[in-house]
């Protein structure tokens, strides 16, 4: 029987040759990811259910990356980090990346890739909806709640319903002004925020395989914005090179069978597409940047797991070099490694960091920061009636802080161009 790549990976994790769409199967988990917001309550449930002296199923398979509320004076947030630290110590966890040490990494989905935890063919569960990001590596990654995570901590297993898949094929050569963010916002406008609920979103086509891993991660990251269980791109040579440079662990490559069944198929040619935004207050509220150009903004924000990778900042720097921003513009690198690269990576002989500082941007420390609002003292948090253009992934009411603010989701090119003019601006005006 023909299977999709998602079915094949789940079948392997269920010790089966074949799994059928719609059946619930128990999976052996390769990695469990958690962070400072959902880690502490997960640990509480683990202790309550398995006993106060219980041990996690595998100290090499639990990855704890605090990233949400890091640079804040909020005492409750600090306590949550303390709880993670204590648990990691008493359990002897091998992969705990403590705040305030040189082990600290930053945003978990980007750090997982950087640290070599993303391996083709494996199964990752994480207490964060954007765990689907890792699907860019030809693996299964999806978000879960604390109770499910606690169950995995104790048993190494979880049930999942095998999803139908939707296939999105992008043909053509990517123009310089088009980004993965534009592709996923295009899709979300077509399928809406629940068009892929309980389904896998599979990306294919020459335009996809021309993208670097970071851009592929932008696509899979926002599968959840369409309700998707997971986003997935089969691993190719580019993916293998990325993985081999960061891990010596074994992995297995899977591909969908040519005659695999799909719920539906969407076909795009990237030459027909143009820069788009998601208008307030939903990621599927798509408009071309040209059709809303001129809309006044009060802030520009470039950061997060979907928009704070090195490739995002390289794109922003191309627009911002030699320019001045006219609104508050926050540059929030996802991880310490990205932050360091801003100093070493150059565009036309100038470091990215210098380009941003010369343009008048605020370069912040790596964390999730204002992508999800966060405590009151979070850098970049929206206030009052702010109108924000942001490279993040959600714009539901109040997401970046103020319930009265409006957020336009956009590519780093569009966010940078708009920062200069103070109005939504098509990046082609600057390229």
């Amino acid at each position, binding site marked *: 029987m023909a299977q999709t790549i998602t079915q094949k990976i789940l079948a392997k994790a269920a010790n089966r040759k074949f799994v059928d769409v719609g059946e619930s199967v128990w999976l052996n988990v390769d990695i469990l990811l958690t962070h400072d917001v959902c880690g502490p309550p997960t640990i509480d449930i683990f202790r309550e259910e398995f006993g106060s002296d219980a041990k996690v199923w595998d100290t090499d398979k639990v990855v704890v990356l605090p990233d949400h509320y890091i640079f804040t004076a909020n005492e*409750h947030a600090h306590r949550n980090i303390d709880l993670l630290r204590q648990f990691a110590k008493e359990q002897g966890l091998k992969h705990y990346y403590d705040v305030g040490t040189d082990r600290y990494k930053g945003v978990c989905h980007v750090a997982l890739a950087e640290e070599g935890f993303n391996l083709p063919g494996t199964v990752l569960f994480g207490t964060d909806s954007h765990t689907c990001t890792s699907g860019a590596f030809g693996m299964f990654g999806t978000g879960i709640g604390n109770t*499910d995570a606690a169950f995995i901590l104790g048993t190494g297993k979880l049930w999942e319903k095998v999803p139908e898949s939707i296939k999105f094929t992008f043909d053509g050569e990517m123009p310089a002004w088009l980004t993965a963010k534009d592709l996923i916002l295009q899709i979300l406008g077509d399928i809406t925020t629940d068009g892929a609920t309980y389904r896998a979103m599979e990306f294919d086509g020459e335009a996809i395989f021309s993208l670097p891993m970071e851009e592929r991660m932008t696509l899979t990251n926002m599968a959840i914005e369409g*309700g998707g269980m997971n986003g997935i791109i089969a691993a190719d040579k580019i993916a293998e090179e990325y993985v081999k440079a960061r891990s010596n662990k074994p992995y297995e490559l899977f591909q969908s069978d040519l005659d695999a069944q799909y719920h539906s198929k969407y076909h795009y040619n990237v030459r027909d597409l143009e820069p788009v935004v998601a208008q307030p207050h939903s990621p599927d509220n798509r408009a071309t940047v040209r059709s809303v150009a001129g809309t006044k903004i009060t802030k520009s924000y470039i950061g997060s797991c979907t928009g704070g990778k090195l490739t995002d900042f390289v794109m922003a720097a191309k627009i911002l070099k030699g320019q001045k921003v006219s609104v508050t513009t926050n540059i929030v690198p996802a991880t310490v490694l990205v932050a360091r690269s801003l100093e070493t990576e150059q565009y036309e002989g100038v470091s990215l960091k210098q380009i941003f500082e010369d343009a008048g941007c605020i370069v912040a420390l790596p964390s999730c920061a204002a992508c*999800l609002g966060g405590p009151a003292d979070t850098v970049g948090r929206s206030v009052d009636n702010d109108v924000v253009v942001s490279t993040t992934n959600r714009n539901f009411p109040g997401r970046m802080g103020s319930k009265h603010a409006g957020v336009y989701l956009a590519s780093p090119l569009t966010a940078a161009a708009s920062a200069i003019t103070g109005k939504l601006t098509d990046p082609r005006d600057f390229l």
Partner: protein
Amino acid sequence: MEKIIQGKAYVLGKNIDTDQIIPAEHLVYSLSDPEEVVLYGTYALSGVPPEQGGLPKGNIPFIAEGEVRSAFTIIIAGPNFGCGSSREHAPFALKVAGVKAIIAESYARIFYRNCVDGGFAIPYETAEQLNQIIKTGDELKIDVEANTIENLTSKVTWRLNPLGSVFNIVEAGGIFAYARQENLMAQS
């Protein structure tokens, strides 16, 4: 598991995401310390823009000023309830506020799983757009065995979609209770 769930309706629109159910700034409180747990009740649904809370009129607070528990124990909503982040704090907050069941046209996957596996509120789906029919404050009665919901205020009854394969987990009270019952707790 209660066989009959009776209470007042709180009606919401579509795409109610977890930031509206419990805004991110409140996720710092403990989910086990009783003094902090009540704060999840205080701030449950506090991210819903006021005019969209308590439909059809709107501007009806879910939690009265100074209260921890809501006067409303059954949520009625449109499609894609609980979309957005994976935070289990969301169904947890609704439970602390006293919510027993949610009836929506559809759910986001993680929220649905959390409701079921965490044993919080029962997530029912209906084919009907009940959030266009039922009004906030209507007295409702859910018959868990018959899979029906009756509006005691307007005397109309609708069918609920069967819970299907997750019924056993809901009935057991969550994934841990279910796994013990089925002897699935052994380490891999």
